[in-house]
């Protein structure tokens, strides 16, 4: 239970990844879907930092910085798309955006 090992961090990261996946798959609101993607990226970061600490190697933390950079870019572009979508279709529900479906 209580010497905290890398396995504890991996378990936490897996749980957070599952929460994020369920959010992406089941929610209809696009804002919440984007938030779930942030949860998934944070799960990845927990893993990277835990392994960086376990292996005494800083490459994992550098990768975490790049993951955060990607998360910022993704959030900015995603929310831009959301605003354009709301202006054109007056909806934020993902399954009402079905223009390419027939």
């Amino acid at each position, binding site marked *: 239970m209580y*010497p905290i090992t890398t396995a504890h961090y991996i378990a936490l990261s897996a749980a957070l990844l*599952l929460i*994020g996946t369920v959010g992406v798959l089941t929610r209809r609101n696009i804002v919440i879907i984007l938030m779930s993607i942030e*949860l998934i990226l944070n799960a990845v970061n927990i893993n990277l930092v835990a392994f*960086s*600490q376990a292996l005494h190697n800083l490459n994992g933390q*550098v990768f975490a910085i*790049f993951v955060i950079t990607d998360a910022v870019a993704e959030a900015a572009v995603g929310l831009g798309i959301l605003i354009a979508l709301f202006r054109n279709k007056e909806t934020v529900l993902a399954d009402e955006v079905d223009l390419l479906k027939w």
Partner: protein
Amino acid sequence: MLTQAIFFYIFAAMVLAGGVLTITRRNAVHSAMFLIVSLMGVAGLYLLQQAEFLFAVQIVLYIGGIMVLFLFVIMLVNLDQAALQKQFNGQWLIALVCVALVGAQVFYFFSKGAGAFRIATPGVTTLLGPGNTEMLADVLFSEYLLPFEIASILLLVAVVGSVVMAKKRI
């Protein structure tokens, strides 16, 4: 060691409870608030692992930057109509399969104990140096200089792209 364990469980509870509440709330503003709780838990975990620079980046960039961006967009876009409608779509079966698959793997590993994880042994390098931020800067600006520059171009493209998409008329 015991204090470390106690703090680990507090932060883990923050992360998981915040995550679950994020994906179940009807009001998007409440979701954003619980996501902030979850991100603060992750920041605490970074601090627990002596990654001080990432701790600061998590607070400043995630909580101070991305979440404010989310809250701005929530207020810009009218979500009242969406809050009155059905919140979940019919994909719960796929979600259940995903959770069952990964959950079974995790359960298998943990039923075999910590020895089931065969983690590589640490190399000769140590993390005992002048400080986390200095060492991180050394690695980032020597070994990862080209990816660093590419990341800056990625951010530039993302900024221009979001402006182009959010603007009414170019």
